[in-house]
């Protein structure tokens, strides 16, 4: 099968979808299910942990850790058995930081002013700076 495609949804959620194989790719038999596997976010693990065996051409993974990288692959199943797995696809959920809350201004020493703020969610990648 061709490798699955990954679509980022809300924070930490992704939709993984794959194309139905054509008749030849399906082995001249109807596809019964698709077997989706992953590594569970462990880079030392093989991509062989079953996520789902489903008739759907997609699957939604929820509440992933945005700091981890995941790998997934899929294979089709017909009456003759399971085909070979697709190439693996990497899921990288890291993204730009979230919107900052309003900056506060307050008195500082010697007639100065102090700006203070709360760091926003870092999107899974460390914040390297702020622009004012």
């Amino acid at each position, binding site marked *: 099968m061709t490798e699955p495609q990954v679509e980022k949804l809300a924070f930490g959620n992704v939709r993984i979808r794959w194309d139905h194989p054509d008749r030849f790719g399906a082995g001249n038999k109807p596809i019964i299910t698709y077997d989706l596997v992953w590594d569970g976010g462990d880079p030392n693990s093989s991509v062989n942990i079953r996520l789902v065996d489903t008739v759907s051409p997609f699957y939604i993974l929820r509440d992933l850790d945005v700091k981890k990288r995941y790998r997934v692959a899929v294979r089709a199943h017909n009456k003759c058995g399971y085909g070979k797995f697709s190439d693996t696809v990497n899921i990288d959920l*890291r*993204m*730009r*930081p*979230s*919107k*900052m*809350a*309003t*900056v*506060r*201004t*307050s*008195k*500082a*020493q*010697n*007639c*100065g*002013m*102090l*700006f*203070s*703020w*709360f*760091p*926003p969610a*870092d*999107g899974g*990648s*460390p*914040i*390297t*700076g*702020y*622009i*004012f």
Partner: protein
Amino acid sequence: MPLPICGKTVGHEYCAVSMETLTSAPFNLRQGSLVEVTAYAVNAFGSGDESELNTHGMKIAAVPGVMEPPKLVSFT
């Protein structure tokens, strides 16, 4: 208008700014003006959305203006 003296040190979520900085170019804020600040965070994947402008907070202060000369009201 960027304020490059703030936000370079991650982990210190505060920044002291002198009135001189805000009252001189390029800001040229006048005494009594509300200091409006917006900011966004940056990481390796890009820039976050800007915060909302503050609607209250500190206003520009300055040294006192020139006083009238003292008056001599009585003497003996």
